[in-house]
């Protein structure tokens, strides 16, 4: 079955808002589909989106190889999913907040987190999660689905304070829809009608568990109806379509028409081309050729073809872009590899003021470090 069929197959029969057919703008060759409308983005914006998707893919490959060399810890790749990540973040205004999981590196980057900050936690440094004040991105969420009620709460806070120009975008995976926190958060979102957009990156797998063993629901999007929310399905390998539905949802969140509810639940249909993380071997649980079929719908090819067709992109520009990406990543990596931290930091950020007990523990550790030297602490325990 082709990926196109695969995407369309998960349709539902009778829930109108959970969109039987996923929304799509570009066909597999990057041609605009009949009746589809390209979102109102300038050539520069389109190009920049394209560059960011390419950067994301290059970053992913570099990160995987860094992990293999032992220079960073376990990494969750995003190849195949960058198009959707980049597009969702393009749909945000600067003042909007992003709740990423461990996989949304590109979404974070586009919303203002520099690449070095993304790499630092992978080198064991919490510093990477302390983004500048004007970058509205939460530290990535690892306990699955826990971000959902929190994102709902932040959106609720904006609403209660009349901050009508601020909205929240919350990412989650297909597996995450099985967790209780997903349910509680979306139910609250419906009841309190908050300016939040929830994007389920349905990459067909939760580690080794395929989408159809995760839930007997016909589609993921239709789960929205349980909470009175609008559920939308979109081709997650079509950056223009993802941009459009997300931007519409953000607009609706801030300024709903009539009796529209503010929150939206988007199922962005994707595929995880690679491993769950660098510690995972997908060949154990899935057919290698599955990914190949999805690659035919690849976002870079589709958007690239579209841009070339429109005369916005050519070989020369492509080469410039690639060089720029290379340099950018090199620089970020250099910065991340030179970054350092101090053992004191783990005591400093537990409470606003360090309690006496903790201070004592820090002093004890420091005395030991002084006496024996830091080498004594860097040995692996095993």
């Amino acid at each position, binding site marked *: 079955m082709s990926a196109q069929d695969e995407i369309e197959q998960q349709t539902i029969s009778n829930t109108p808002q959970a969109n039987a057919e996923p929304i799509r703008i570009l066909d597999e060759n990057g041609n605009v589909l009949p009746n589809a409308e390209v979102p109102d983005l300038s050539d520069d914006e389109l190009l920049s989106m394209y560059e960011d998707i390419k950067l994301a893919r290059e970053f992913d490959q570099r990160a995987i190889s860094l992990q293999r060399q032992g220079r960073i810890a376990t990494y969750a790749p995003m190849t195949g999913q960058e198009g959707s990540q980049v597009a969702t973040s393009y749909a945000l205004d600067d003042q909007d907040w992003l709740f990423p999981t461990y996989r949304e590196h590109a979404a974070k980057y586009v919303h203002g987190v520099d690449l070095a900050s993304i790499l630092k936690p992978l080198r064991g440094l919490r510093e990477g999660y302390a983004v500048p004040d004007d970058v509205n991105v939460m530290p990535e969420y690892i306990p699955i689905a826990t971000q959902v009620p929190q994102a*709902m709460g932040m959106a609720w806070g904006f609403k209660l304070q009349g901050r009508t120009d601020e909205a929240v975008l919350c990412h989650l995976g297909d597996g995450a829809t099985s967790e209780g926190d997903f349910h509680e958060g979306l139910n609250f979102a419906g009841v309190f009608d908050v300016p939040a957009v929830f994007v389920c990156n349905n990459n067909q797998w939760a580690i080794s568990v395929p989408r159809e063993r995760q839930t007997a629901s016909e589609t993921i999007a239709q789960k929205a109806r349980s909470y009175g929310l609008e559920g939308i399905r979109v081709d997650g390998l079509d950056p223009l379509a993802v941009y459009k539905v997300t931007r519409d949802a953000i607009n609706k969140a801030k300024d709903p028409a009539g009796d529209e509810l503010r929150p939206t639940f988007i199922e962005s249909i994707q595929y995880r081309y690679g491993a769950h993380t660098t510690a995972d071997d997908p060949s154990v649980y899935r057919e290698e050729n599955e990914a190949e079929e999805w690659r035919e719908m690849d976002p870079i090819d589709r958007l690239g073809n579209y841009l070339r067709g429109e005369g916005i992109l050519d070989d020369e520009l492509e080469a410039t872009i690639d060089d720029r990406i290379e340099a950018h990543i090199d620089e970020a990596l250099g910065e991340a590899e030179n970054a350092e931290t101090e053992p004191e930091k783990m005591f400093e*950020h*537990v409470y606003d003021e360090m309690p006496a007990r903790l201070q004592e523990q820090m002093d004890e550790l420091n005395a030991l470090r002084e006496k024996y030297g830091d080498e004594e602490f860097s040995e692996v325990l095993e």
Partner: protein
Amino acid sequence: MSSATNPETETKTDRLTLVEAVRDGLYTEMSQDDSVIVLGEDVGKNGGVFRATDGLHEEFGENRVVDTPLAEAGIVGSAIGLAMTGMKPIPEMQFMGFMYPAFDQIVSHAARLRSRSHGQYSVPMVVRAPYGGGIRAPEHHSESKEAFFVHEPGLKVVSPSTPYDAKGLLTASIRDPDPVIFLEPKLIYRAFRDDVPTESYEVPLSDAAIRREGSDISVYTWGAMTQPALIAADNLAEEKGVDVEVVDLRTLSPLDTETIVDSFKKTGRAAIVHEAPKTGGLGAEVASTIQEGALLHQEAPIKRITGFDAPMPLHSLEDYYLPQAVRIQEGILETVDF
């Protein structure tokens, strides 16, 4: 509630019960600070199942006193998000036994957002919950598992034992920039009244309180158990001439190690009284803290007078489960006579 001006302090005071003082603390702080909001199950129109939020819904409206759906992770999770927007949310958990569905949000997130973000973000939230046994409540309504939260760095844990402290500690908790688990001893919600200033005031989250001075033994306790501990102390003074010091910890995390150890240095003997099961209870931490800090003063084993290592029984047996004055007296005597 009748108001009066306290001649000693010249502040206006009310005679309030502990639960009224909680309500008053919420009221006072909400009046002064618009960012404070209360949310939870039945806290709004109904005023809370113990009336701790009585009248607040009318006074501050449904946007600041919010009835939520029945979902504790939703309540605490959304409160974390609210806190990120500059608000000071006070989620109520209807009973401590119903905090567990929110356990992940509390320990994995509220406690750690500051450290996870390397100091960039914080969660100034107060999770309130009635706790403890003795009120003939059904199953799961009598939990006293403060030790769970004390073991999680990043949380503060508070439990008042008097109406005065209830308001003052709650005020301090609301103003604290870190997440506080505020455990209200429901057994003594209405047990007695105290002079409680109508104005706002803080009881700092750092100091244990000596409720009764004594020289023979230090008894450490908190929350509802402060009452039987004081009764036992009085009985022993009268009947046996034993002079008991009663230390009410008040803030359970971070512990006031200094007061704990100083009292022990004076008496050389100690008992700890709590409702929770003995094994792994906070009594173990207090005992360990004492012997780390003052072993050379120790004249007898430190006695733990606690709930048993069994789930809280239904109400016909709960008086056997909870440390009664008689058990406390016996434990103290055993230690004093060692």
